[in-house]
């Protein structure tokens, strides 16, 4: 039984991490080595057509600052778009979500349960179903192909997650804290900023990480509303597929490494809150 368990774990670990390992290796290759009929596993100082070794090079990383044939900007241009849109939408979503969660946590709002479930249900809408009317709306407000347009959409897209996660965190803060502050003559708003916000800081950080990753990973809205000016990295990569000079795999892999590295770092940071994050705070551990 023990052996079986070990086999399952090791086997799956190898299978699950192989694509990421291969991504890392690909980013160190030359174009010829990525499409070689003899798979190249081992980074080495030299390459020969018949062996499994290849000459490791950082050329692909250096090439990221040059635009790929058929695109107008280099990788970092799109990365900057992703960073801008991701961070601004995350900040707004966490701010609005925290306020909203506080309201629902501490006040008697008629129909609060229905409102909360309405907020949750917005998360289920497929981007491609929402995008049709939004496109027409955005055209008339000139929001198509702007950073602002995508920031607004990602904020609303992440609000459900932010509100639900923050409600869980704020519910855990004892009411006695702010009641004491209110008795001391603090206004509601001051009690919120000076008592609740510091207490909920960890929760806000965790929520921000989840919102940031959702915005970072989003493709449906970005692909349809933002294919030109404010193009994000996922849309940029998707567009390289039919490249006239062959898919530039080493460069794509190098860009992907840079793009997913922050996600991996953040995942490690919030690893103890993952369960909460993926279940909208329903399961707390």
């Amino acid at each position: 039984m023990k052996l079986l368990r070990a086999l399952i774990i090791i086997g799956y670990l190898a299978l699950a991490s192989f694509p990421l390992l291969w991504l890392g290796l690909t980013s160190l290759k030359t174009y010829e080595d990525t499409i070689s009929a003899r798979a190249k596993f081992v980074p080495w100082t030299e390459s020969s057509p018949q062996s499994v070794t290849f000459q490791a090079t950082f050329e692909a990383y250096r090439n990221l600052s040059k635009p790929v044939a058929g695109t107008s900007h280099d990788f970092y241009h799109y990365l900057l778009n992703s960073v801008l849109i991701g961070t601004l939408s995350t900040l707004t979503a966490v701010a609005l979500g925290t306020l909203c969660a506080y309201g629902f946590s501490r006040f008697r709002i008629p129909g609060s349960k229905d409102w909360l479930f309405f907020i949750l249900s917005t998360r289920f809408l497929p981007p491609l179903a929402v995008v049709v009317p939004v496109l027409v709306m955005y055209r008339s407000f000139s929001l198509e192909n702007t950073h602002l347009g995508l920031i607004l959409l990602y904020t609303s897209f992440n609000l459900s997650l932010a509100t639900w996660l923050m409600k869980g965190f704020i519910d855990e803060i004892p009411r006695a804290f702010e009641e004491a502050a209110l008795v001391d003559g603090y206004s509601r708003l001051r009690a919120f900023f000076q008592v609740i916000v510091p207490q909920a800081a960890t929760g806000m950080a965790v929520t921000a990480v989840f919102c940031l990753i959702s915005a970072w990973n989003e493709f449906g809205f970005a692909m349809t509303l933002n294919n030109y000016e404010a193009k994000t990295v996922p849309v940029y990569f998707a567009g390289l597929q039919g490249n006239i000079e062959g898919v530039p795999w080493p460069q794509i892999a190098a860009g992907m490494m840079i793009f997913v590295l922050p996600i991996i770092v953040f995942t490690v940071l919030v690893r103890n809150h993952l369960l909460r994050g993926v279940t909208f705070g329903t399961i707390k551990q």
Partner: protein
Amino acid sequence: MTSVSGSDSSRWLGWSFVTPALLLLLALNLFPLFFSIYLGFTNADLSGGETQGIGARNYTVLFSDARYAGAITTTALFVLCSVSIELVLGFVLALALKDRFPAKPVVLTILLIPMMLTPVVLSLFWNLILNGHYGILNQILGGLGLPQPQWLTSDDLKFVSIVMVDVWMWTPFMMLISLAGLNAIPGYIYEAAEIDRASRLTVFRRITLPMCAPLLGLAVLLRGTDALKQFDLVMAMTGPNDLTTQTLSARVYQVVFRDYKVGLGAAYAVVILVMVIAVATLFVRYMDQLQRQQGRAGG
């Protein structure tokens, strides 16, 4: 708290905390829904031109189009295949991972990483792995003396490939929630079963499975509603207009952004929304029930 928050002024204060968020959601989620219904009855076009009401013509076109039925079948099949494989795999993994072993936290974190990564980006990279000529998967299969199928170009296998990548990405999600379910079963129940000399199979069927069931249900609903939206992998691996893998979202993309038919796209959106609302209602009821149970158990 009633003394403070029951008064009229604080009721308004409560609303003022929640209104900004609600307004944004109403503007970017609820309003578009109604707008879709209107657009669905027009001939709105992406290339410009006068928008006119054309009655229910979009719906007659839609319902008589075999590609509409095809997209529904593909989506349903995708949800069914990927979610059930992920559930079984994830649960088996969770059973293997439940007890202590060396470096458990590190292993768990590594296993969970795929579900956090950008689906469209990683599936693009999978194209290199699955490439029929120089892909690493076929090279390994060839080395083992196995057949080397065309994963991305053969009509029989495209769908399988997409499910495969989805399973790689989302099995960790099922594993994570299954683990939470398994860890929540108190040890004394297993001890009691041991005293009663229940067989392993009985313990699994009568204790482990039923006690994990509520959380597994939640996991299936969360994954199911997400899989229903499937767009990213299809776009990255086979493109929006491949009939063997065209999900509803991919179909909408094709109709609106390749054929420029906004009105017809809106009709599609309305049909999808009706389905999503049905599933979401089910989900919301389930969540509500689960929260109440957890509240009872915790309080």
